[in-house]
């Protein structure tokens, strides 16, 4: 009885002594408490680090004296929360975005240059195959185009004619942006099937483009379709090829993980390739806006369309290679071959 009572009084003394620190740490580390911002202050960081160190001692002591108790578990969880908060990357989404767009974009392009080239070649070949198929076997067009599209072209008009009469530019732009985002995300994520999903999407898109071009060529509408596609199409197709390259890198990471484990290699690849997609987001939006406002608008001449399309593609290429910021990221020596 005496033993229990002295144990209780020792526990009481310890709790009285340590309770203040635990409460403070608990308040700071509570999810969504907002107190996380205060930790940025120098003095508070020191206090927090000291509290964390003493909490680790408390956990050790509690594990020895009260194994399996609720108090021990509470202290363990508090320690895990505080430790994970202490090790958390400094915040500031804006800073991360700036670093990605200014410093990392060129490096990413350099790392993925071979895959980008491969995917672009596959896409271009698919376009030619699609063209060749329809020129030689016109009936196959029903595989790549909807009945409505085929009927329109056979009547001598494009499905894009009078698009602005059907819906306003703003809606059109939003629909196009959503569609582009979905195709790009799918091309990327389908890489998880050892790159085969990505290959399917790239080849299918290439075949569709080639076959539709060939079909409109047969009906003397090729120039009009080209005029529609030119202002936005170059960048849009480039982004799809980049997403394909990102998807292929996932597939390759799974198929050939190298010295890393398959899952480590996959995670690394997802993170690098995913950044590349984030870089493309503003271009999706601009392409959608151009496709909604400029492409279907007949008041733009062919020359204007060529200038817009080529200039936009040039800006895109300068940006994606990192040359627009004149960073040193293209320096071959500075890039690690770790993808």
């Amino acid at each position, binding site marked *: 009885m005496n033993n229990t009572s002295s144990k*209780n*009084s020792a*526990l*009481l003394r310890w*709790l*009285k002594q340590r*309770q203040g620190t*635990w*409460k403070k740490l*608990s308040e700071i580390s509570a*999810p*969504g408490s907002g107190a996380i911002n205060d930790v940025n202050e120098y003095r508070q960081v020191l206090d927090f680090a000291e509290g964390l*160190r003493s909490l*680790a001692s408390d*956990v*050790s002591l509690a594990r020895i004296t009260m194994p399996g*108790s*609720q*108090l021990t*578990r*509470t202290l*363990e*969880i*508090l*320690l*895990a929360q505080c*430790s*994970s*908060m202490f*090790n*958390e*990357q400094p915040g500031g*989404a804006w800073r*991360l975005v700036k670093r990605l767009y200014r410093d990392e974009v060129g490096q990413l392009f350099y790392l993925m240059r071979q895959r980008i080239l491969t995917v672009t070649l596959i896409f271009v070949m698919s376009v030619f195959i699609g063209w060749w198929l329809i020129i030689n076997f016109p009936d196959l067009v029903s595989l790549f185009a909807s009945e409505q599209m085929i009927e329109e072209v056979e009547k001598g008009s494009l499905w894009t004619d009078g698009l602005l009469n059907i*819906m*306003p530019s*703003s*809606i059109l732009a*939003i629909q196009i942006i959503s569609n582009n985002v979905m195709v790009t*995300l*799918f091309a*990327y*994520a*389908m890489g*998880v099937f050892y790159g085969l999903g990505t290959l399917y999407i790239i080849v299918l898109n290439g075949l569709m483009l080639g076959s539709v071009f060939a079909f409109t060529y047969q009906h003397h509408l090729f120039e009009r379709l080209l005029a529609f596609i030119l202002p936005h199409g170059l960048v849009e197709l480039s982004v799809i090829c980049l997403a394909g390259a990102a998807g292929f890198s996932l597939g390759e990471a799974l198929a050939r993980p190298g010295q890393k484990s398959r*899952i480590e290699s*996959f*995670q690394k690849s*997802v*993170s690098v390739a*995913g*950044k590349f997609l984030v870089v493309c987001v503003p271009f999706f939006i601009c392409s959608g806006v151009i496709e909604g406002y400029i492409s279907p608008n007949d008041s733009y001449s062919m020359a204007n369309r060529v200038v817009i399309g080529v200039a936009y593609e040039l800006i895109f290429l300068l940006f994606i290679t990192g040359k627009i910021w004149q960073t040193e990221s293209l320096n071959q020596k500075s890039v690690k071959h770790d993808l």
Partner: protein
Amino acid sequence: MEQLKIDVGQGIDIRFNVAGLGVRSFAFVIDWHIRFILALAWLFFWFLLIDFSQSWFDNMSRLFKESSSTAYLLVFLPAMIMYFFYHPTLEILMKGQTPGKRMAKIRVVGQDGEIAGIGAHLIRNIFRLIDSLPLFYCFGVLVCLLNDRHLRIGDMAAGTIEIYVDHETKVIMDDIDHFIKDDRLDLEQRQIIRDLIKRWEILDHSMRETLSRQLLLKVGGQGSREELQALQGEDILQSLKDILSS
């Protein structure tokens, strides 16, 4: 149950139970209902606002038929954003939780136990496209079943894992407060009483009353020994609550 071991440095590692398919599905179903109801509530709000004189159903059918640009931008687009951006937005804002996950007492963390970053949350949600193939998350569920840590493809890609966070830290801190003020009831006894109250409804009547009487006698509830033994039903429960709050 599979456990995640987190190394917090200083020679200490802490274990957390990994959330299984059942609890993850439970959280998802709750979240799905919340986002669906939110999106629907937004639509109804606008249908009401557009024309008070007509019924909800008429408004809805009229909007779907006309599909005007204003209706699309003001009504449908925000509803779609609410539905599709629910998971990534809330997971980032609530540090790995959503209302559904909070109710299911689980949280998304990095596989090293650290708080998952914005990038990780975005990636795990992008890969929902694959997990949801061919429909109703079949692929994700299958993958989840086939690995020990119950990870779907999105988790594997983002390096995240879902763990149980069902511990009531605040309650234990309050217990310490009470114990410091009045040490007649120690922390362990408080926990036993709280567990008993929590499970009151699911325990057998006679069993819970016997247990409670024994407990009250041991910890010295208010009243004499005879009075405590004579307590029945809700009075016993109330006595237990009184002890905790006294």
